[in-house]
Protein backbone atom coordinates (compact mmCIF):
# COMPACT_ATOMS: atom_id res chain seq x y z
CA UNK A 1 0.00 0.00 0.00
CA UNK A 2 1.39 3.45 -0.82
CA UNK A 3 2.65 5.43 2.18
CA UNK A 4 -0.25 7.92 2.34
CA UNK A 5 -3.74 8.19 0.85
CA UNK A 6 -2.39 11.08 -1.23
CA UNK A 7 0.28 8.78 -2.70
CA UNK A 8 -2.44 6.26 -3.49
CA UNK A 9 -4.65 8.86 -5.19
CA UNK A 10 -1.60 10.15 -7.07
CA UNK A 11 -0.79 6.63 -8.27
CA UNK A 12 -4.37 5.91 -9.28
CA UNK A 13 -4.74 9.22 -11.12
CA UNK A 14 -1.44 8.64 -12.92
CA UNK A 15 -2.63 5.19 -13.96
CA UNK A 16 0.11 3.27 -12.12
CA UNK A 17 -0.78 -0.39 -11.99
CA UNK A 18 0.89 -0.91 -8.60
CA UNK A 19 -1.57 1.58 -7.07
CA UNK A 20 -4.49 -0.48 -8.36
CA UNK A 21 -2.79 -3.64 -7.08
CA UNK A 22 -2.36 -2.05 -3.65
CA UNK A 23 -6.00 -1.06 -3.63
CA UNK A 24 -7.03 -4.61 -4.57
CA UNK A 25 -4.86 -6.02 -1.77
CA UNK A 26 -6.49 -3.66 0.72
CA UNK A 27 -10.11 -4.05 -0.32
CA UNK A 28 -10.44 -6.90 -2.84
CA UNK A 29 -11.49 -9.62 -0.37
CA UNK A 30 -14.01 -7.37 1.40
CA UNK A 31 -15.44 -6.18 -1.89
CA UNK A 32 -15.81 -9.78 -2.99
CA UNK A 33 -17.46 -10.86 0.30
CA UNK A 34 -19.95 -7.99 0.11
CA UNK A 35 -20.62 -8.70 -3.57
CA UNK A 36 -21.32 -12.36 -2.77
CA UNK A 37 -24.04 -11.34 -0.29
CA UNK A 38 -25.46 -8.76 -2.69
CA UNK A 39 -25.46 -11.06 -5.72
CA UNK A 40 -25.56 -14.58 -4.28
CA UNK A 41 -23.13 -15.89 -6.88
CA UNK A 42 -19.34 -16.24 -6.84
CA UNK A 43 -18.99 -15.68 -10.57
CA UNK A 44 -21.17 -12.59 -10.59
CA UNK A 45 -19.38 -11.28 -7.48
CA UNK A 46 -15.97 -11.68 -9.17
CA UNK A 47 -17.25 -9.90 -12.27
CA UNK A 48 -18.66 -7.10 -10.11
CA UNK A 49 -15.28 -6.61 -8.39
CA UNK A 50 -13.62 -6.46 -11.81
CA UNK A 51 -16.25 -3.90 -12.91
CA UNK A 52 -15.34 -1.75 -9.91
CA UNK A 53 -11.65 -1.65 -10.83
CA UNK A 54 -12.31 -1.03 -14.53
CA UNK A 55 -14.62 1.81 -13.48
CA UNK A 56 -11.84 3.19 -11.27
CA UNK A 57 -9.46 3.28 -14.25
CA UNK A 58 -12.04 5.16 -16.28
CA UNK A 59 -12.72 7.65 -13.47
CA UNK A 60 -9.12 8.01 -12.27
CA UNK A 61 -8.82 11.65 -13.36
CA UNK A 62 -11.62 12.56 -10.94
CA UNK A 63 -10.47 10.47 -7.97
CA UNK A 64 -8.59 13.38 -6.37
CA UNK A 65 -11.93 15.02 -5.61
CA UNK A 66 -13.17 12.01 -3.64
CA UNK A 67 -13.06 12.42 0.12
CA UNK A 68 -13.73 8.83 1.15
CA UNK A 69 -12.18 6.27 -1.18
CA UNK A 70 -13.56 3.31 0.78
CA UNK A 71 -17.14 4.62 0.51
CA UNK A 72 -16.56 5.35 -3.18
CA UNK A 73 -15.34 1.76 -3.77
CA UNK A 74 -18.32 0.16 -2.07
CA UNK A 75 -20.76 2.56 -3.74
CA UNK A 76 -19.23 1.52 -7.08
CA UNK A 77 -19.64 -2.11 -6.05
CA UNK A 78 -23.28 -1.49 -5.20
CA UNK A 79 -23.93 0.04 -8.63
CA UNK A 80 -22.09 -2.81 -10.33
CA UNK A 81 -24.16 -5.33 -8.34
CA UNK A 82 -27.44 -3.58 -9.17
CA UNK A 83 -26.46 -3.48 -12.83
CA UNK A 84 -25.66 -7.20 -12.78
CA UNK A 85 -28.89 -8.07 -10.96
CA UNK A 86 -30.93 -6.14 -13.53
CA UNK A 87 -29.09 -7.88 -16.34
CA UNK A 88 -29.63 -11.29 -14.72
CA UNK A 89 -33.33 -10.48 -14.34
CA UNK A 90 -33.54 -9.33 -17.96
CA UNK A 91 -31.77 -12.47 -19.17
CA UNK A 92 -33.80 -14.57 -16.72
CA UNK A 93 -30.98 -16.66 -15.39
CA UNK A 94 -30.75 -17.71 -11.77
CA UNK A 95 -27.63 -16.94 -9.80
CA UNK A 96 -26.00 -20.01 -8.29
CA UNK A 97 -25.62 -20.40 -4.56
CA UNK A 98 -22.37 -19.13 -3.12
CA UNK A 99 -20.10 -22.03 -2.25
CA UNK A 100 -19.02 -22.04 1.38
CA UNK A 101 -15.32 -22.42 2.25
CA UNK A 102 -14.31 -26.10 2.13
CA UNK A 103 -13.02 -26.10 5.73
CA UNK A 104 -16.52 -25.45 7.06
CA UNK A 105 -18.26 -28.51 8.49
CA UNK A 106 -20.38 -29.39 11.50
CA UNK A 107 -23.22 -27.52 13.22
CA UNK A 108 -21.60 -24.08 12.88
CA UNK A 109 -21.25 -24.61 9.16
CA UNK A 110 -24.89 -25.60 8.97
CA UNK A 111 -25.91 -22.38 10.79
CA UNK A 112 -23.72 -20.41 8.40
CA UNK A 113 -25.40 -22.04 5.44
CA UNK A 114 -28.82 -21.28 6.88
CA UNK A 115 -27.78 -17.68 7.50
CA UNK A 116 -26.61 -17.34 3.89
CA UNK A 117 -29.86 -18.80 2.60
CA UNK A 118 -31.92 -16.51 4.86
CA UNK A 119 -29.84 -13.54 3.67
CA UNK A 120 -30.65 -14.34 0.07
CA UNK A 121 -34.35 -14.22 0.87
CA UNK A 122 -34.10 -10.62 2.14
CA UNK A 123 -34.93 -7.69 -0.14
CA UNK A 124 -31.95 -6.11 -1.92
CA UNK A 125 -31.81 -2.98 0.30
CA UNK A 126 -31.65 -5.08 3.47
CA UNK A 127 -29.05 -7.44 2.00
CA UNK A 128 -26.93 -4.47 0.99
CA UNK A 129 -26.84 -2.92 4.42
CA UNK A 130 -25.87 -6.23 6.05
CA UNK A 131 -23.24 -6.91 3.38
CA UNK A 132 -21.70 -3.49 3.89
CA UNK A 133 -21.74 -3.47 7.68
CA UNK A 134 -21.01 -7.13 8.49
CA UNK A 135 -19.15 -8.52 5.48
CA UNK A 136 -17.31 -5.38 4.36
CA UNK A 137 -16.79 -4.09 7.91
CA UNK A 138 -17.98 -0.56 7.17
CA UNK A 139 -19.11 1.70 10.01
CA UNK A 140 -22.64 3.12 9.89
CA UNK A 141 -21.19 6.46 8.80
CA UNK A 142 -19.46 4.70 5.90
CA UNK A 143 -22.56 2.65 5.05
CA UNK A 144 -24.51 5.90 5.06
CA UNK A 145 -22.01 7.47 2.65
CA UNK A 146 -22.27 4.46 0.32
CA UNK A 147 -26.06 4.39 0.34
CA UNK A 148 -26.41 8.18 0.39
CA UNK A 149 -28.40 8.13 3.63
CA UNK A 150 -27.96 9.61 7.08
CA UNK A 151 -26.09 7.44 9.59
CA UNK A 152 -29.29 7.14 11.66
CA UNK A 153 -31.26 5.87 8.65
CA UNK A 154 -28.50 3.41 7.77
CA UNK A 155 -28.50 2.09 11.34
CA UNK A 156 -32.30 1.83 11.37
CA UNK A 157 -32.28 -0.02 8.07
CA UNK A 158 -29.64 -2.39 9.42
CA UNK A 159 -31.65 -3.06 12.56
CA UNK A 160 -34.77 -3.74 10.50
CA UNK A 161 -32.80 -6.05 8.20
CA UNK A 162 -31.46 -7.96 11.21
CA UNK A 163 -34.98 -8.37 12.58
CA UNK A 164 -36.10 -9.74 9.22
CA UNK A 165 -33.11 -12.07 9.18
CA UNK A 166 -33.97 -13.32 12.67
CA UNK A 167 -37.54 -14.03 11.53
CA UNK A 168 -36.25 -15.81 8.45
CA UNK A 169 -33.99 -17.94 10.67
CA UNK A 170 -36.97 -19.00 12.78
CA UNK A 171 -38.79 -20.34 9.75
CA UNK A 172 -38.12 -23.95 8.78
CA UNK A 173 -35.18 -24.17 6.38
CA UNK A 174 -36.36 -24.62 2.81
CA UNK A 175 -32.97 -25.55 1.44
CA UNK A 176 -31.00 -23.65 -1.19
CA UNK A 177 -32.76 -20.60 -2.67
Amino acid sequence: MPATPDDLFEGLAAGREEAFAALYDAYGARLFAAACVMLGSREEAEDAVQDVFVGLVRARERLRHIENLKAYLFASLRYAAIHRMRRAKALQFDTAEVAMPAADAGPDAEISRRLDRALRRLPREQREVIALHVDAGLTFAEVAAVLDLSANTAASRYRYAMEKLREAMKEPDRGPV
Partner: protein
Amino acid sequence: MDPFDLPRELRDLERRLAARGRPEPSADLRPRVLAAVRRELAARPALTQWVWGGFWQYAAAAAAGLLLVLNLLMSMGNRSDFPVSRAANGADVQQAAAMICELVSFITPEEAAREALLLRAGSHLEMVPQPRPGVTGLRALRQIEEGPPWVTQ
Protein backbone atom coordinates in the same frame (compact mmCIF):
# COMPACT_ATOMS: atom_id res chain seq x y z
CA MET B 1 -34.96 3.88 20.58
CA ASP B 2 -31.35 4.30 19.53
CA PRO B 3 -30.94 2.71 16.09
CA PHE B 4 -27.26 2.09 16.84
CA ASP B 5 -28.10 -0.13 19.83
CA LEU B 6 -29.23 -3.65 18.96
CA PRO B 7 -31.08 -5.87 21.45
CA ARG B 8 -29.16 -8.83 22.79
CA GLU B 9 -30.83 -11.33 20.47
CA LEU B 10 -29.90 -9.33 17.41
CA ARG B 11 -26.37 -8.83 18.76
CA ASP B 12 -26.01 -12.63 18.96
CA LEU B 13 -27.27 -12.97 15.42
CA GLU B 14 -24.83 -10.29 14.28
CA ARG B 15 -22.00 -12.18 15.99
CA ARG B 16 -22.97 -15.41 14.23
CA LEU B 17 -23.28 -13.56 10.97
CA ALA B 18 -19.81 -12.08 11.35
CA ALA B 19 -18.34 -15.43 12.36
CA ARG B 20 -19.84 -17.43 9.51
CA GLY B 21 -17.53 -18.75 6.84
CA ARG B 22 -17.32 -16.18 4.12
CA PRO B 23 -16.31 -17.05 0.60
CA GLU B 24 -12.81 -15.96 -0.36
CA PRO B 25 -12.11 -14.71 -3.87
CA SER B 26 -10.42 -17.28 -6.06
CA ALA B 27 -6.67 -16.97 -6.47
CA ASP B 28 -6.98 -15.95 -10.10
CA LEU B 29 -9.25 -12.96 -9.37
CA ARG B 30 -6.32 -10.65 -8.54
CA PRO B 31 -4.40 -11.29 -11.81
CA ARG B 32 -7.68 -11.14 -13.71
CA VAL B 33 -8.63 -7.78 -12.22
CA LEU B 34 -5.14 -6.37 -12.77
CA ALA B 35 -5.13 -7.61 -16.37
CA ALA B 36 -8.45 -5.82 -16.91
CA VAL B 37 -6.94 -2.68 -15.32
CA ARG B 38 -3.90 -2.96 -17.64
CA ARG B 39 -6.14 -3.35 -20.69
CA GLU B 40 -8.24 -0.37 -19.67
CA LEU B 41 -5.15 1.76 -18.99
CA ALA B 42 -3.80 0.92 -22.44
CA ALA B 43 -7.12 1.72 -24.07
CA ARG B 44 -7.60 4.99 -22.19
CA PRO B 45 -4.39 6.91 -21.58
CA ALA B 46 -4.78 9.73 -19.04
CA LEU B 47 -6.30 12.91 -20.45
CA THR B 48 -3.39 15.04 -19.24
CA GLN B 49 -0.94 12.64 -20.88
CA TRP B 50 -2.91 12.86 -24.10
CA VAL B 51 -3.07 16.65 -24.01
CA TRP B 52 0.62 17.22 -23.27
CA GLY B 53 1.94 14.22 -25.16
CA GLY B 54 0.06 15.15 -28.27
CA PHE B 55 0.35 18.93 -27.91
CA TRP B 56 2.38 19.48 -31.07
CA GLN B 57 0.18 17.10 -33.04
CA TYR B 58 -2.83 19.02 -31.79
CA ALA B 59 -1.25 22.39 -32.67
CA ALA B 60 -0.30 21.17 -36.17
CA ALA B 61 -3.80 19.81 -36.79
CA ALA B 62 -5.39 23.07 -35.59
CA ALA B 63 -3.09 25.17 -37.83
CA ALA B 64 -3.84 22.96 -40.84
CA GLY B 65 -7.56 23.28 -40.20
CA LEU B 66 -7.28 27.05 -39.88
CA LEU B 67 -5.35 27.32 -43.16
CA LEU B 68 -7.93 25.19 -44.93
CA VAL B 69 -10.78 27.38 -43.67
CA LEU B 70 -8.93 30.58 -44.70
CA ASN B 71 -8.23 29.12 -48.12
CA LEU B 72 -11.88 28.19 -48.61
CA LEU B 73 -13.03 31.63 -47.49
CA MET B 74 -10.65 33.38 -49.90
CA SER B 75 -11.72 31.09 -52.70
CA MET B 76 -15.37 31.83 -52.02
CA GLY B 77 -14.64 35.56 -51.90
CA ASN B 78 -12.86 35.51 -55.26
CA ARG B 79 -15.52 33.49 -57.01
CA SER B 80 -18.52 35.27 -55.53
CA ASP B 81 -20.63 37.19 -58.00
CA PHE B 82 -21.97 40.42 -56.54
CA PRO B 83 -24.37 41.73 -59.20
CA VAL B 84 -25.87 44.54 -57.13
CA SER B 85 -23.44 47.30 -57.98
CA ARG B 86 -23.11 46.22 -61.60
CA ALA B 87 -26.88 46.03 -62.01
CA ALA B 88 -27.33 49.63 -60.93
CA ASN B 89 -25.17 50.88 -63.80
CA GLY B 90 -25.60 47.95 -66.16
CA ALA B 91 -25.93 48.45 -69.90
CA ASP B 92 -29.38 46.90 -69.90
CA VAL B 93 -30.61 49.41 -67.30
CA GLN B 94 -29.18 52.34 -69.25
CA GLN B 95 -30.75 51.01 -72.46
CA ALA B 96 -34.13 50.62 -70.77
CA ALA B 97 -33.86 54.14 -69.31
CA ALA B 98 -33.12 55.52 -72.77
CA MET B 99 -36.14 53.72 -74.20
CA ILE B 100 -38.34 55.13 -71.42
CA CYS B 101 -37.04 58.63 -72.16
CA GLU B 102 -37.90 58.17 -75.86
CA LEU B 103 -41.39 56.89 -75.10
CA VAL B 104 -42.22 59.34 -72.31
CA SER B 105 -41.00 62.75 -73.31
CA PHE B 106 -41.75 64.54 -70.03
CA ILE B 107 -39.82 62.14 -67.78
CA THR B 108 -36.48 63.26 -66.36
CA PRO B 109 -33.42 61.00 -66.98
CA GLU B 110 -33.16 60.28 -63.22
CA GLU B 111 -36.82 59.19 -63.11
CA ALA B 112 -36.32 57.09 -66.25
CA ALA B 113 -33.30 55.41 -64.65
CA ARG B 114 -35.34 54.72 -61.53
CA GLU B 115 -38.19 53.24 -63.57
CA ALA B 116 -35.71 51.15 -65.54
CA LEU B 117 -34.23 49.80 -62.31
CA LEU B 118 -37.70 49.01 -60.99
CA LEU B 119 -38.60 47.28 -64.23
CA ARG B 120 -35.41 45.25 -64.10
CA ALA B 121 -36.01 44.28 -60.49
CA GLY B 122 -39.59 43.37 -61.29
CA SER B 123 -38.49 41.14 -64.11
CA HIS B 124 -36.91 38.76 -61.59
CA LEU B 125 -39.88 38.60 -59.27
CA GLU B 126 -42.69 36.12 -59.38
CA MET B 127 -46.27 36.89 -58.56
CA VAL B 128 -47.39 35.19 -55.37
CA PRO B 129 -50.50 35.56 -53.29
CA GLN B 130 -50.14 37.57 -50.11
CA PRO B 131 -49.67 34.94 -47.37
CA ARG B 132 -51.89 35.50 -44.37
CA PRO B 133 -51.94 33.42 -41.23
CA GLY B 134 -54.91 31.31 -40.19
CA VAL B 135 -58.13 30.62 -42.01
CA THR B 136 -57.94 33.85 -43.97
CA GLY B 137 -54.59 32.80 -45.39
CA LEU B 138 -55.90 29.36 -46.32
CA ARG B 139 -58.91 30.91 -47.96
CA ALA B 140 -56.63 33.22 -49.91
CA LEU B 141 -54.63 30.24 -51.11
CA ARG B 142 -57.82 28.48 -52.24
CA GLN B 143 -58.79 31.61 -54.16
CA ILE B 144 -55.65 31.60 -56.29
CA GLU B 145 -57.59 30.45 -59.32
CA GLU B 146 -60.29 33.03 -58.71
CA GLY B 147 -57.89 35.93 -58.78
CA PRO B 148 -56.72 36.90 -55.28
CA PRO B 149 -54.98 40.20 -54.64
CA TRP B 150 -51.50 39.75 -56.15
CA VAL B 151 -48.48 41.34 -54.67
CA THR B 152 -44.81 41.26 -55.50
CA GLN B 153 -42.35 40.16 -52.89
